[in-house]
């Protein structure tokens, strides 16, 4: 049943610099988690995306990016599903 979702998660994990990936539903229940992403953080990730949506509720949900020194966490909501991708930072080349 979750074959399609697993495929998407595997595709994301195959992307360079991605260390983890998590998908959760609107209640904060984890649908899929791989790599460094821990199942327990599903609730917090959904809460962060919901909080960010409150800033401008009439616009479509924004992408939230949490940056640490060498890692970043990208959170995007699509309908009732929230996805998070954990990445290693690459050297910025401008």
């Amino acid at each position, binding site marked *: 049943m979750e074959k399609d979702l697993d495929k998407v998660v595997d595709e994301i994990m195959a992307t360079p610099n991605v260390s983890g990936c998590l998908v959760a539903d609107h209640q904060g229940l984890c649908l899929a988690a791989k790599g460094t992403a821990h199942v327990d953080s599903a609730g917090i990730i959904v809460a962060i995306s919901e909080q960010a949506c409150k800033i401008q509720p009439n616009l479509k949900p924004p992408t*939230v990016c*949490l940056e640490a020194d060498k890692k970043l966490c990208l959170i995007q909501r699509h309908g009732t599903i929230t996805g998070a991708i954990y990445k290693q930072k690459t050297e910025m080349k401008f």
Partner: protein
Amino acid sequence: MEKIPDQTGYLILTEDGAVLESAGELENDERIATIIIDLISLSNTVDPLAFGPNEKFKKISITYDDHWYAICISNKKIYVVKRSISPAAAEGNAIAV
């Protein structure tokens, strides 16, 4: 803060959410101030496994189609800047991420 390119408004908050300074589209916007304080306290508890205790988040960005908010903490003050995205800059962002 006014010198930041493409900024359309900014907020400087204390750690408890009181507005110290504000201008532009975020002028005296206490609603957004409260949301951002909640967002920061939530982000402190994200995944201790992936982000160790020594890896606190330095910056939060919230990106919409045509503008984004940058949130940073320095000297116990929270800086929030709303910036517009020009099409050329949007391409640059996509590469950076």
